[in-house]
């Protein structure tokens, strides 16, 4: 069996998550080969064949050109699996490859057991086992679900080329705004989730943060609703944090949020639902309504 792994680089640097693809390849009991749109300055530690698309020429993101080059590698190597990260890049590109090859795709895979893929669904409240009916498959893996493997060594580079036309122009990156608040160094973070209920209730979060000397964070739905500013969003599309104490208030625990808080020292989660996925990562899950529990906790902190 052979897997074609699709690595990623961002702004000239290899993404470390690329090594998780090697972990998935091992679970598939396959020989890995690698495709990467990157530069020679950011090569992976891996001794096999690297099909390298020069990111200076073809961009770090260009679905049409990258698709064309990946299909060239597929034609030449005939891999059993084409494996992507379930990242912005992989989510975008994987279905294009699957559709071009008319082969099945499994998305956001968290485990592989005897060739059957395990996927999450319904906000991680359920899992599905999925089999692919075609002889080959496209797979995207959930970031963090597979242990990274650093094969070591220097890759044998095969430079890729294409003169395909692109229907989409990548005009560069727009950086995070200057108003960005850096939560990365905060020692205490009190974070609000949808379970807080209303914008007014976020006062409970601000109040506790002030008394504890911490920062306020938020999950995506709270930011989208405009209850707390965008620059305080925590998770894979926001900031990654590592406070000594993280208090998650009414956050159900979507995987994107968990990815941003997993390096926290001690996690207290407050949630009405004892089955909420945040329980998978919390050191203590308080089964309660945040709007009732937070005033009680704040009072205890002020008047011990």
């Amino acid at each position, binding site marked *: 069996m052979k897997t074609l792994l699709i690595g990623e680089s961002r702004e000239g640097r290899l993404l470390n998550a690329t090594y998780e693809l090697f972990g998935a390849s091992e679970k598939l009991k396959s020989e890995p080969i690698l495709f990467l749109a990157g530069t020679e300055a950011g090569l992976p530690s891996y001794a096999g064949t690297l099909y390298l698309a020069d990111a200076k020429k073809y961009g770090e993101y260009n679905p049409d050109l990258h698709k064309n080059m990946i299909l060239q590698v597929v034609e030449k190597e005939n891999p059993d699996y084409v494996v992507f990260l379930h990242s912005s890049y992989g989510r975008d590109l994987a279905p294009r490859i699957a559709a071009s090859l008319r082969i099945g795709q499994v998305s956001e895979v968290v485990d592989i057991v005897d060739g059957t893929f395990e996927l999450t669904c319904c906000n991680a409240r359920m899992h599905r086992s*999925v089999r692919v009916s075609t002889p080959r498959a496209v797979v995207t893996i959930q970031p963090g679900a597979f242990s990274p493997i650093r094969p070591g060594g220097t890759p044998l580079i095969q430079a890729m080329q294409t003169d395909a036309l692109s229907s989409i122009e990548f005009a560069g990156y727009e950086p995070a705004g200057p108003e960005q608040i850096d939560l990365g160094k905060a020692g205490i973070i009190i974070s609000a989730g949808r379970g807080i209920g209303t914008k007014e209730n976020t006062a409970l979060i601000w109040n506790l943060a002030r008394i504890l000397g911490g920062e306020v964070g938020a999950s995506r739905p709270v930011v989208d609703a405009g209850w707390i500013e965008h620059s305080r969003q925590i998770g894979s599309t926001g900031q990654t944090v590592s406070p000594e104490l993280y208090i998650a208030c009414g956050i159900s625990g979507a995987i994107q949020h968990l990815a941003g808080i997993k390096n926290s020292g001690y996690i207290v989660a407050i949630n009405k639902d004892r089955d909420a996925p945040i329980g998978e*990562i919390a050191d203590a899950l308080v089964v309660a309504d945040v709007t009732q529990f937070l005033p009680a906790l704040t009072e205890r902190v002020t008047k011990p």
Partner: protein
Amino acid sequence: MKLLVCIKQIPDMESQFKPDESGSWFEESGLVYRMNEYDDYAVEQAVLLKEQLGGEPDLTVLSIGPDRVVEIIKKALAIGCDRGVHIHDPAVAHKDPWQIASLIANFAKEQHYDLIFTGMQSQDRGSAQVGVMAAEQLGYASATTLVGFTYHEGLITGLCELEGGLKGIVKLRTPALVTCQSGLNTPRYPALPNILKAKKKEIRTIPASDLSRAAALTATTRIFKPEKKGSGIILEGDTSTLADRVINLIRENTTLLR
């Protein structure tokens, strides 16, 4: 100009899910259904574009599923879509993304839409495949996970959400398909007069079997509640006792509150 927005009806994600008799999908009875969150943003963006162009574009909303999906088609019509298409398919939950994309593409092929909007994924299955696969089948340019969208004379400029707060700027020309991320805009609530007006708008029903008989490329063999792996403790009881216990835990496990 012709616009299409594709929407899905999904159960409330806070529901208690359990496997149904087939063992490969969840029990649907007793669940409360609503529009997929990302599709709210897709509908809003399509209506905003129609408004930007002085109301000229003809905007169709499409949904696939059993009878109940008509509810969200009606909601989209009340928000500002002109006509609805219901691809009737009681077994849609057992179709794979390729089959669902084939239904959309085969319907859209005849209609020559300039621009198609979808959500970036569904909240229940979350494959993030259907929109892009439909675009590939139609030969349309596509961009995904948009948190910014502008349109000027056939040119779309999109902001694609990447990781860590970074965004990618992309430009593409119609005909095209874009998938919408939450935060792209502020979805409106349908106003009462528009809900009444929407009742007069046409909803065309097409049996799924008339559009596509594509075979599935993947199959769900089992759906199940994942085993709990968390090693944390669970605290229950009255609020003031819980507050005391949490403070003690923070003292024991951190350097804080001492």
